[in-house]
């Protein structure tokens, strides 16, 4: 089915998220939509899939203008979207997820549906157990389930929004093969939205590059990478040379530590983290890196082994004890777990700093806020409520709350969903801390980020922990293989 967008506009308040977007996608092709985070790609796809409404413009399917007023409408027209975090029901079974929403009368015929599910799965060579629960599946498998569901509902256009974040190399390979050999070849129009240049280049027949809400250029095979980079960023932004700053002193020492979570077990970890060192934790979501990070911070108690912080035994002690000895934990969900919506920027600083006396010194809070706003380049004022800041500024604010001096900073996904400028700025601030002797351990699904900024890398797979890898000597491909479970000595 041919898809055509004409002069689409979308505003979020004052933010012109999509500005005059015009694009034609021929039937049976793979269209790449390239652009960094915040460029307007996801917004456009949400419009096309009926999740939100455009403020102006037209959509034509097979040369006929259509109105897509809801996701149900979209699927009726044959447009299906695979969201970055697949919109499924984790506590329900695969089969229930598959069936839910299919217009089919009052009583479901489970055996018929199971059969159709298995047939479809076989055709695409996916292997998912229909009776298992979705919260036990990996992200890659959840994507496969969603693709099956959309196919079953008769989708002829498949939109994939950032599908390659958080899946292993082999799952990515499988996805790409499925898209090229099984779907596009059958006449399915595929729209692949991503900020990962490499992936978009491999897959697409034609690429449209987005920047700041506009389509700044289009390209056809064969692609010129430099040209695409320039269209994406407008200039050549490189993160700069790697900086290794680790020192001799040991900050964190894990001795025979075992961690147990609801679903997995990490056995017998022995690790020494040195001052100034950056350790990156790589792995598919739910492979154990989250639990590991929480155990290093005192948020979780290990079931065996000893944890030593600066030569002091802190095994089994709470996070607040760790905090007193110079450890800080920054969660991934900025607004839900890291910041307090309803309080202003200045109030956050008052909270984070050591208090002087009983009564609040609001002047001090304001001064402190202004100081940090400048040094971290936060777009906001001391009296701004924290929820009014953009994602990137919230992350900068979260970082700016870190006290001085620190021994160990533990961060879940420091730059998730942020534009490249914020990413570089945040890492420069973190590296400043390393120079002062702080060690950093962070989780990321962006393998390039892991290799660029870490000294050593630990890969997690099903609770297994790899030996620390030298980041300067590892490639993205090798990392991708490892997080998918390949190449592990058993």
């Amino acid at each position, binding site marked *: 089915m041919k898809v055509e967008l004409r002069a689409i506009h979308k505003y*979020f308040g004052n933010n012109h998220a999509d500005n005059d977007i015009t694009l034609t996608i021929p039937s049976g092709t793979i269209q790449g939509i390239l652009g960094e985070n915040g460029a307007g790609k996801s917004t456009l796809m949400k419009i096309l899939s009926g*999740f*939100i409404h455009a403020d102006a413009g037209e959509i034509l399917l097979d040369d006929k203008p259509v109105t897509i007023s*809801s*996701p*149900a409408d979209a*699927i009726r027209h044959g447009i299906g*979207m695979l*969201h970055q975090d697949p*919109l*499924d*029901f*984790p*506590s*329900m079974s695969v089969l*229930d997820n598959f*069936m*839910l*929403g*299919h*217009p*089919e*009368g*009052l*009583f*479901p015929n489970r055996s018929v549906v199971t059969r159709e599910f298995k047939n479809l799965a076989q055709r695409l060579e996916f292997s998912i157990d229909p009776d298992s629960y979705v919260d036990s599946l990996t992200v890659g498998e959840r994507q496969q389930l969603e693709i099956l569901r959309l196919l079953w509902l008769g989708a002829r256009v498949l939109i994939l929004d950032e599908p390659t974040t958080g899946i292993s190399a082999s799952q990515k390979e499988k996805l790409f093969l499925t898209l090229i050999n099984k779907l596009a070849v059958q006449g399915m129009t595929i729209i692949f939205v991503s900020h990962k240049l490499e992936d978009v280049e491999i897959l697409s027949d034609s690429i449209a590059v987005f920047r700041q809400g506009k389509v700044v250029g289009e390209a056809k095979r064969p692609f010129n990478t430099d040209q695409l980079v320039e269209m994406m960023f407008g200039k050549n932004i490189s993160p700069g040379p790697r900086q290794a700053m680790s020192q001799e002193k040991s900050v964190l020492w894990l001795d025979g530590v075992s961690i*147990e979570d609801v679903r997995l077990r990490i056995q017998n970890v022995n690790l020494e983290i040195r001052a100034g060192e950056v350790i990156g934790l790589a792995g598919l979501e739910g492979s154990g890196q989250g639990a590991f990070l929480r155990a290093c911070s005192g948020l*979780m*108690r*290990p*079931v065996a082994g000893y944890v030593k912080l600066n030569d002091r035994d802190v095994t*089994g002690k*709470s996070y607040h004890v760790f905090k007193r000895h110079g450890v800080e934990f920054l969660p991934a969900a900025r607004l839900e777990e890291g910041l307090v919506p309803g309080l202003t920027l200045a109030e956050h600083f008052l909270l984070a700093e050591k208090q002087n006396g009983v009564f609040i010194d609001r002047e001090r809070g304001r001064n402190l806020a202004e100081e940090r706003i400048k040094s971290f380049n936060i777009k906001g004022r001391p009296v701004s409520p924290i929820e009014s800041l953009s994602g990137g500024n919230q992350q900068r604010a979260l970082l700016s709350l870190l006290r001085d001096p620190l021994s160990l900073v533990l961060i879940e996904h420091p730059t998730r969903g942020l534009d490249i400028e914020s990413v570089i700025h945040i890492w420069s601030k973190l590296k400043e801390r390393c120079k002062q002797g702080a060690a950093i351990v962070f989780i990321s699904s962006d393998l390039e980020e892991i290799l660029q900024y870490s000294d050593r890398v630990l890969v997690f797979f099903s609770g297994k922990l790899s030996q620390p890898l030298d980041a300067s000597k590892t490639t993205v491909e090798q990392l991708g293989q490892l997080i998918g479970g390949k190449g592990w000595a058993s």
Partner: protein
Amino acid sequence: MDSTMIIIGLAGVFAAAAPVIFAVMGETISERAGVINLSMNGTILLSAMGGFAVSVRTESLPLGFLAGMLIGAGVALIVAFSSITLKQSQVAVGFVLALVCRDLSYFLGNPFMGLAGPRLPAWSIAGLSEIPVIGTLFFRHDLMTYLSFVVIFLSWLWIFRTHPGLMLQGIGERPAAAFVRGANVNLMRYVYTVLGGAIIGLAGPTYSLSVKAGWKGTISGLDGIGWIALAITIFGGWNPLRAAFGAYLFALLQWLGLVLQPSLPNIPSQVLQVAPFPLMILTLLLVNIGDAEWVERTLASLPEPTRRFLARAFRAMRASPPAALGTPFETQ
């Protein structure tokens, strides 16, 4: 006490539990869609008074029950409107309505206090009521008790065995995912909240026209039932069958309290009357204790076999609410 009396007593438990069943089923449906209706205590009182008043004035039992349903649906509509469309706190609105409806019931019910009204007649089902034991237990009740059995079955059937029911589960779990699958989430929330409210509205008249016939104002003994029903809903884990079990267990304990009272003269009657509440707290404690952080930390320090066993036990006892309960849904 001989066996016939025990069986009759147990049959009485089913009948006495009928109003609570209505309340709990209605609330379960509403909460499955993601809306807490905290006004239950007030709704039950107001629908009891209203149903009784209408019934006395019109001398018609069906109209009394209908009035009760309409009152229940109306109050639920206010809860739905305030929380879904106006996005105010469900707890705040529900709590205020619980108080207002209670005061309204006392104020408007003043003229009806102590009046004699119609009573729901018993209706034994021919044939089935002759079966020994089972017949007395299940088939010698009145219409509303039979209806309570039916409501349990229909609620279970709807939620777990139909397509729309599957969608209901989805709406409560993750409204965004239900939306993408074509559900009009907010409309569905309205429908289920009001429907749940209508079923709750059957509880009051079942008291004032059957189980505790008449309207006695502040000494009606109905004040507090709604809060217990809320606790039973949580205990029921948002599953109609488990919730029904909880309601029957509660009614059984109340009956036991009455029965055992003469043989335990030293325990004041207040203690037995209030016993359900500590029990309720205890059960709430048990279903959630596994999640407490201190429990997780202590578990980690235990030897492995004990840890495994306890962790599995806690997980089995768990009752987790629909994930999106209490949160408003917006697409942008």
